[in-house]
Each structure stands twice: as C-alpha cells, then as structure tokens.
C-alpha cells in the first residue's frame, strides 16, 4: 500500500519511474538543444517534485519503507545537490505550500487528541517530556563538551563558552517533527499505544522546546558577549505568546465548529482558506502556528460532533499536501554539509538516537508503562524537520561568530534524522502492533 492507500505492484512502480526518466530526458534534451534559453521556474520544479514523489513513494512502499522516505528522496534528487531542477531559491518560493501543509498537519494532530486519551496517558506524557529535555539536553551537551577537539568552532574557547554553545545545540536536538509523525500515522493507519504517545509528545515538546531554546540562546549570548546579561525576563513574552496561541486556537476551533455545523458545504475550500488566513495572522501576531492549529483541532474533536467532517476534509487534501511538503523538505536538505563533516555528523546522529532511547526507556520505567513502549517508545522521536532548521537559522543570526558553524552542523544532523527517522518510526509502529498481537 502506498501513501494514498493504493495497492502497489512492481509493474506500476517500473512504469512510474520510467515516466519520470522520460520527462527528465525530454527536458534535458530540449534544454541542451534549444537556442532560446529555458527559464527554470518553481512551477516546473513543483510539477517534477510531484511526479517524482509519486514514483519514488511507490517504490518505497513496494520495498516496505514509508512513502514519506520516497517523497524526501524525490526532493533530494530534484534539489540543488543532485539534479538541480529545484534550487534553494525555488524552494523558498514554495513556502506557500508548506504553510498550508503545516497548518493541516497540526489541525489533524489536534483532532487526534481526546480528553480521555490525555487523562489515560498523562503520567507517561509528563515523564517522557521531562526525560527528553533532561537526558537529550544534558547528554548532548556532555558529548559536545568532551568531543570539543573534533569541532573547529569550539577551539580556543573557555569551558563556560563551550558549555553554552553545546547546550544551545542540544536544545535544537530536542525538537521533533510533528509532520513526520502525522504523515507516518496517516500512511500506516496504525492506532496503538505508540501512536497516541508519539502525538502527545511531539506536540508538547514543540511548545516546550521554544521555552528551553529561549533560555539557552539568552544564556549563550550572555556568555559569549560580556556586554549582555542573562535574565529570565525574556520568558515573559514567550509565556504570553503561548497563552495567546491557546486562546486563538480555541477561537478558531469554535469558528470551524460553527461553519461545519451551519454551512457544511465547500468544507475543503473553507479549511484551506482558514489555514492560510490563520497562518498569516499567526505570523503577524507572533503566535505559535502549530499550537494554534493543534488547539483548534482539539476543540473541534472534544467539544463538537463535527470532527469527522473536518478529518475527512483534511485527509482528502493530505495526499497532495504530504507529497509537496516532504518533497520540498527533501529539496532543501544540505547534503553537501554532511559530506564535508560526515564523521562528526554521523557521531552526533547516533548519539541522539541512543539518548532518545535512554530518555524513553527511563520515562516508561518510571511511569510503569507498557513494556513495548519501553522498547520501541523512542522510534517516533528520531525525525526532525522544519522547526529544528528554523532554530538553527535563528542561532546563525543571533551569534554571528560561532552561529553559522553550529547551524551547519545542526542542519547536517537534521538531514540524517529526516531521512532515517520515518523509517525507524514505521518499524517501531509495526513492532508494537506485533508485540500486542503476541501477547
């Protein structure tokens, strides 16, 4: 089964790949033989991403990998590092699609939460969140501190400075990818304790990581620049922002309920319009877009009977959205960054996996959760995507001297996490299902 729920055969995969090769060959022939220069544009790139995504998504489904990996591979193949059909400038132009995708993903994630589910998993969610911040945060700071000789940008710095920079990097590493989690759950249609747990943690961490990151960056700035002082006052606007986001999410949730209850027709158009409108508003008011939509989805599910209509609408859009979102994410990956410093990147990638496993194992031991969660609970949290890259870019802007190097390192590790994360999560979901059946 592919990401769209279709049955995939070797014949259809071969034909799809042949179709992509045909388009590519025709384009290259025209480009090389034409006297009039071709103006590459984002529309051509977008179309190519879609058909390549379909073909490679089918290929991945055939060999048992998530379709999402195929979409990412399509992006990598079309991106600046390989075929250069979609360059980084064109990826930026496709951000309009990404904002819609992120809004729909968050709305879908929010609609998966029920008050009952939160009550049932409250203890596990709390412990896991705490352990993720503590173990990955402290663990990766320690790894970077002791391995500082391998990182040229840490050379010659005082211990406090190294700790500050390492802590900043570790904060980026804490963030997860809600989009990847929702995409894999949508594709596999598996609902078990791991899926419930994964959704809860990625949403909670998405909010908390912003708080932790704000503290870390203020600390790093004050250590690296003696003219600046560290103060917890910076948390006040952040907390205000979170409260305002929850309030806005509640309002938009009620708006969706009202529309679906009173009008109901053209739900797809309405959802798309609300997604774009609210995203623009969130950017203007500096609200956390993801939190706003998650809360809106939660309100619709728990305080009305309109959830089914909304979920059907989102699911009918999701195949288009997922392919575009992940293919453009793939096209924006910086493979060249990995090649330059690959031993360090691979080391940090493995260290993060181990620490995530330790955090999840520890949390489930303390919360006395199901033993399958102790074993496979770490699998949803390997993926990283947009938020992590966003934080890395912020570091690069805030710390002009060491920031760009930290950002390059973080983006390189995120690239590996983005490629391997979905595969590991799909494997984990299947293992938990098997575990349940065996019992």
């Amino acid at each position, binding site marked *: 089964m592919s990401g769209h729920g279709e049955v995939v055969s070797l014949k259809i995969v071969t034909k*799809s790949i042949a179709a992509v090769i045909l388009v590519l060959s025709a384009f290259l022939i025209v480009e090389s033989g034409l006297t*009039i220069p071709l103006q590459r544009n984002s529309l051509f790139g977008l179309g190519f991403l879609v058909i390549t995504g*379909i073909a490679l998504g089918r290929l991945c489904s055939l060999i048992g990998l998530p379709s999402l990996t195929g979409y990412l591979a399509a992006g990598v193949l079309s991106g600046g590092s390989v075929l250069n059909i979609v360059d980084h400038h064109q990826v930026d132009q496709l951000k309009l699609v990404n904002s819609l995708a992120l809004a729909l993903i968050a709305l879908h994630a929010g609609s998966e939460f029920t008050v009952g589910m939160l009550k049932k998993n409250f203890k596990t969610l709390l412990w896991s969140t705490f352990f993720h911040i503590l173990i990955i945060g402290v663990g990766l700071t320690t790894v970077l501190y002791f391995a500082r000789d391998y990182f040229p940008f840490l050379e010659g710095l005082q211990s406090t400075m190294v700790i500050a920079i390492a802590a900043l990097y570790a904060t980026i590493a804490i963030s997860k990818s809600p989009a990847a989690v929702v995409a894999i759950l949508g594709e596999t249609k598996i609902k078990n304790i791991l899926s419930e747990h994964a959704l809860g943690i990625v949403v909670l961490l998405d909010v908390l990581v912003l708080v932790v990151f704000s503290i870390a960056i203020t600390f790093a700035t004050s250590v690296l620049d003696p003219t600046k002082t560290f103060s917890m006052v910076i948390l006040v606007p952040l907390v205000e922002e979170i409260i305002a986001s929850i309030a806005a999410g509640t309002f938009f949730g009620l708006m969706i309920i009202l529309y679906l209850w009173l009008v109901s027709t053209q739900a797809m158009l309405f959802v798309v319009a609300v997604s774009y409108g609210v995203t623009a508003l969130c950017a203007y008011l500096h609200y956390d877009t993801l939190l706003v939509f998650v809360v809106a989805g939660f309100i619709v599910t728990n305080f009305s009977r309109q959830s089914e209509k909304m979920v059907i609408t989102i699911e009918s859009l999701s195949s288009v959205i997922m392919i575009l979102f992940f293919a453009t994410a793939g096209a924006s990956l910086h493979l060249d960054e990995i090649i330059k410093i690959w031993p360090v990147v691979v080391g940090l990638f493995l260290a993060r996996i181990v620490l995530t496993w330790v955090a999840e194992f520890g949390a489930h031991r303390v919360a006395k959760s199901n033993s399958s969660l102790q074993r496979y609970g770490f699998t949803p949290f390997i993926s990283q995507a947009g938020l992590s890259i966003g934080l890395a870019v912020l570091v690069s802007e805030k710390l002009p001297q060491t920031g760009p190097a930290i950002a390059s390192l973080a983006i390189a590790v995120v690239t590996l996490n983005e490629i391997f994360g979905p595969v590991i999560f799909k494997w984990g979901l299947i293992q938990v299902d098997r575990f349940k059946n065996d019992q």
Partner: protein
Amino acid sequence: MNAILILLAIFSLTLLVSNLDFISRSKSFSFLSVPLLLGIAASPEYSLIPLLPSTRESLVWAIKVAIVWLGFLQGVEMAAQRLEKKKALQSLYYWSTFLVIAILFWVLFESVFIQKEFTTPVRVNWIIPVLFALLVFGSQISLFRTLLFLLITSYFITPTVIIPFYPIIYAVMIGVLLGFVSRMIIDPRQNLDASARLTLLGVGVLGAGWAIAMGLYEVVVGLALGWTLTFVHKYGICRDPSLRKTEQPLLFVISFFVGSYFEFDSWLFLLAGVSVLIRLLIKTLALKKEMPVLSIQEATVRALPVHPFAFVLVLSFQLWPKAGLQDSFLLSIFCVFFVINDLLSLVSEWFLQKEDKAWRLQ
C-alpha cells in the same frame, strides 16, 4: 489579502446574479459577464476595486496553471468530437462567408483609418485576427478552430513566419508527452482517486512550468494533454464527472482576469458592435438554413452564445510573453464583444419568453 477578498467578491456577486429569477431561467445569457465586468472595474485603468498590476502579476502563475487545467478539460471534450461530413460542409459555407466579410472589413479599415492616422499600422494588422477570433468563438469550440485562432493571431503580431509555429508545435509535443507520462503513472483500471488526482495536478503544473520556461501557449499544452490522455487511456478517469466540476469556478476567475487587462480605446465599441452584428447575421442565416422550422428569434437566441473557452484562449494569448502585455487590443475588443453579445442574449431571450407567455395565455 486584496486578491483573496476580490475573488470572494466575484464569487458572491456571480452567485447572487445567477440566482436572480429571470436570469436563472435564461439559457443563452452567460454568467461570465458578471466577473468580466468586475474585472474591468478592477483593471488599473478604472481601479474601482483596488487590484494593482503588481498584485495581478503575482497571481499570473496560478492563472497559468488554471489555463492548463481548463485546456486539459477542453482537450478531453474535444477528443470525444467526431468529424462529420455534413457538419464540415455546413461550416465551410459559414467560414467562407465570414472570410469574405472579414477581408472587406479589413480593406475598409486600411483605406479609412491609415489615411487619417487614426491608429497605428500594427493595430490595423490586428483587425483580421480580431474578426477571426470572433468567428472562432461559436457555441462550440473544436481543436481545429482553436489551433487556427492561435496560429493566425500569433502570425499577425510576430514578424517572421516560423516563430508562430514554435509555441504551438512545441506545446503540442509537450502536451502529448505529458499525456503519455500520465498514462504510465495512472493505471487504466484506476479510478479518479487521490493518486490519480495528484498525478493530473502534478502533470498540469509541470506543463504550465514547461510552457513558461519555453514561452509557449499553456492552453495548447493543456489541450494536447487532455486529448492524448483521453486517447491513450480509452477515456478511463477522463469520464469521471467530478473532473468537470472544477471548470465553472475556474472560469469565473479567468473571466475576471480577462476583464482586469481591459484597456479602453475609442473605436473598440464600433468594431465590437459591428462584429457582433456580422456574427449574429451569418450564424442566424446559417441556422435558419440548417433548421428552417426555427423562427428568427429562436435562431437568434441559439446563434448568440459564445463558448466560455474563448476566455481561456484570449487570456492565454494575452499572457503569452511574445504578445506583450502592453497591447491588449484583442482582449479589450473581446470584452466589449462578449458583454454586448450577452446583453443581446438577455434581451432576445426576454422577448422570446414574453412571446411564449402570451402564446400560452391564448
């Protein structure tokens, strides 16, 4: 934000007008006049609605995708049309009459307006394609008519003979290629499911991007894509009725954009009015010859409608990079022509309905 508000306004007003009692019963009146007039009001020349040229240009890429999609839908329809000997002979009579009138018209303009320096020679050159365009826009549009329109209009505004063929032939080749590509990705037994929709969307966007990259006619890419896919797919997914549901909203947007490129010229009304009358006269006579039982009023009502695909063709031509955005003469005259034609439709249908009512009362 402006653009979204404007689009919402078009939809609301069009829905409102289409629900008016008399108009909703009308068969020949086209509701596309409403967004067209709104577009004219929003054009930079009048600026009654604040649609700046920059906002309009930032939306051109989306319009080009819509053009490919509408071309695709029309291509699917055209693939179902069969060439009949009787119809071909009828249209031969119609075409030759119109050609004679067009040439006479052109000679008249050449002799009158060039001497008076009323307009530039380039604009006089436009008379043939304009008349031709109005002829082409019948109540039905075939692939042959469409290609002929594009070839002739391209020929009259480009200096060499070879160039007009380039954007059409390459566009046809790309459309055919993409049709085969769609066939390879979509299994013939497949329904119009999410995967098939996504493939069509992807291929449509790819076609639009390719046409932009090479400076081709997007509409031809769409037509060739639809025609080829229908042909190689043995109709398959192309038969799905939900495909056509996307047509009407897109046509509203397209007609609005056509209006937004309108540029006023003192003799637009003269030329458009004369064109409407000539077209109406010839078409009514042709219809009366074909079906002698029809009354003059019935034949008129049948002769008046213009196929909505005309909007797509006109806009596609306007957005073609070689046409130059400065010269929107063809488009402007089409706007006036369409509105006059629609008003005539409304009036003649009103008379017809009144007569019908009187006859029933008797």
